[in-house]
């Protein structure tokens, strides 16, 4: 035991040059690896958020499609005029005043089909993710795991922003929409979902055409 202790105490250590070289080599190996690790983490984050964003964009399209389909079922006798009606009343005779305008909306699930909200000025959009409550484009994550633009008890803010842009057209007549848009035949639906990645904002866009048929 004494011999072992003595050997440790008397043995010459590594020279400073050796230590510096060793640390240098280690740094050269670790630095790119650390960079790669950070980049990989970032890519993983983008991939994960992108997946959710694509699904939210798809959900946006599906909700508008559901909105259209529900109206076609609701207003069997006035499908042509009411397929884009945005009202809660189930009355086949009063939908004309509630036909959608072209513009930006937020959309969410509702008891009967989807609910489209266009509460404010559609020009009030920007590429930032600043909180906007009118209409609420920023989605919140509910306790059930469902994203929604409407605040409910127990939900939490999410990083996702979803905007639904509708463009109505009259194809079957004179090509010009009438004042109440009841002659609309087709709507172009563009759903934009934005989310932050570091200091930048990424956008996922999904677009489809829907017609006054089903």
């Amino acid at each position, binding site marked *: 035991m004494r011999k072992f202790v003595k050997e440790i105490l008397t043995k010459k250590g590594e020279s400073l040059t050796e230590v510096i070289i060793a640390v240098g080599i280690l740094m050269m190996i670790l630095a790119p690896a650390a960079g790669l690790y950070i980049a990989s983490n970032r890519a*993983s984050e983008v991939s994960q958020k992108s997946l959710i964003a694509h699904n939210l964009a798809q959900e946006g399209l599906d909700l508008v499609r559901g909105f259209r389909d529900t109206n076609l079922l609701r207003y069997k006798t006035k499908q042509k005029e009411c397929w884009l009606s945005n009202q809660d009343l189930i009355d086949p005779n009063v939908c004309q005043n509630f036909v959608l305008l072209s513009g930006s909306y937020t959309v969410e699930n509702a008891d009967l089909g989807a609910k489209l909200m266009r509460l404010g000025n559609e020009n009030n959009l920007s590429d930032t993710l600043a909180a906007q409550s009118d209409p609420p484009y920023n989605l919140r994550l509910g306790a059930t795991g469902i994203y929604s633009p409407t605040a409910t008890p127990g939900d939490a803010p999410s990083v996702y922003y979803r905007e639904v842009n509708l463009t109505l057209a009259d194809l079957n007549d004179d090509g010009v929409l009438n004042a109440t848009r009841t002659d609309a035949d087709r709507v172009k639906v563009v759903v934009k979902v934005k989310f932050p990645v570091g200091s930048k904002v990424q956008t996922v866009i999904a677009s489809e055409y829907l017609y006054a048929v089903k």
Partner: protein
Amino acid sequence: MKFSQLISSQTIESMSLIKNRRGVSMYVATVFVAAMMLVSASLAYQMVSGKANSERWAKKDKIEHMLASAQEAAEWIITSSGIEGADEQQLAAITAQARADLEALALEQLQAIDPTAVLADLHCDDVDPITPGEQPCFELKIFGKGRPAQVIQAREADAGGANDAQVAGAAAPNGAIDYSNVTGSGKNFASGTFQFKGATVYSVPLPGTGSVAGSESTTDGFAVPCVNSADADDPCNWNKLAFGESAEIPLYREEKDPNGATVIRGLPRGGQLYLRMRTPCKDNNEAVNANADALRRATLEFPNTPIANGDAAAKLLGVNPRIPGTDFPRNCPASDRIVLYPATTSADYLSVDKDPVIVQWLVKGSGGLAELLAMERSHDGLRYNFDDRDNLNKRANSQLGSGRLNRSIQLEDYINLSKDDTGFTIQRGIGRPYTLIEYISLFFLNKPKLKLNAISPLRKDANGRQSDELVPYLEYQFLTSEQIAEFQPKYEVTVRLFGMSAKKSGKITQPTGGSDFVLGNL
């Protein structure tokens, strides 16, 4: 001591120390570095593959959206021209708008991935015609009820698709659905009946949609897609039937009455049913060089201006060499078709022992009287050929041998199913035998279907002997004097983006008055 000498001596000393050092430190260092490199490589791979997967996923998404929009557009065209009762001009405008919408959307989808993409890259612009090998980024095919003859002729002539509005003014029948084909290239045409043996007939497949020409006729080397379908012998009007396959053709249609109830309708008693079968055209590996024209294809130009009387819908621009293995002429004479063993000149021709049954046809239905099948008959060990069809005692024969098919091609013959009245395995036993058309029209069979079964390998004839070489398929065409089948306009949409392709099809049921209906049994 100079500095350089100091460094030099120190370096040498260090290297010497490292080299001569005993112990495990070098091994530990090596393992450590290797592990770090492995982890780094793994991270890099995950990063790259994750990005690639995300991109692939995004592309698939774009195609799905495009497909859904194309489907909506197809349904819109059908319902706008049918339920809404749009006239020809409106239909033309709607069709043109739908096409423009889809072109723009396709570009948007592509630019979301590749911002530098332009419309021409998609073959979505009005480049006409699409050259062989090119494929449009989307296609809408809509099959429905035929328009009045003058409209059909005008629209067939208007294959360029630019002047649909010029046929405006032709009255559309109530609730009419056009048979249209709208592609990204701007093709837009209609089709209906054609002439056969001096009579107007309806066909399966629908004119211009036969599988012999392929779903994408441009890939089969046609100079122009299947738009000129007025010729009964055009390959665009024939379907393929390969060994082991069967084809079922409904001989009835289902309609919805105004109350939404399903009504079954059949063929009228006076109707005629013709079955035509032939072998495919020889490709240019065959020894048919004597007929140089058969090895060339015609390039046709379709003027945009409709031709009122339907004549001269296309003009010949020139002939080009056929593309080996992929190309075949639109007009293939009997002499250029593959001959099955045994040829008509062979000693084995029509021999029951040597002349194999290639195709068997039968009419089947559901319910008590499930099946009608004409039995094989022979006389003196020989099968009957098509020349026997007028002999009342011999004409019932649902087994089509090679010899019969060879003979059929030479005679440009056909089987008149509606006249066969004997030899069925199941008889009603209520007095006189009924003809096939009576069985069908009187509903002794419930929902009757004509079934074709290719039951033997198709072998070529080699100078009167059986060749080991197989014929890939036969071609068939089923003609009726009346339109039959469902009143269900059918659509098929195809999208090709990012090197991927997706297809959807569907039917739309519409109320009917009962007098007009479509041939929807493709």
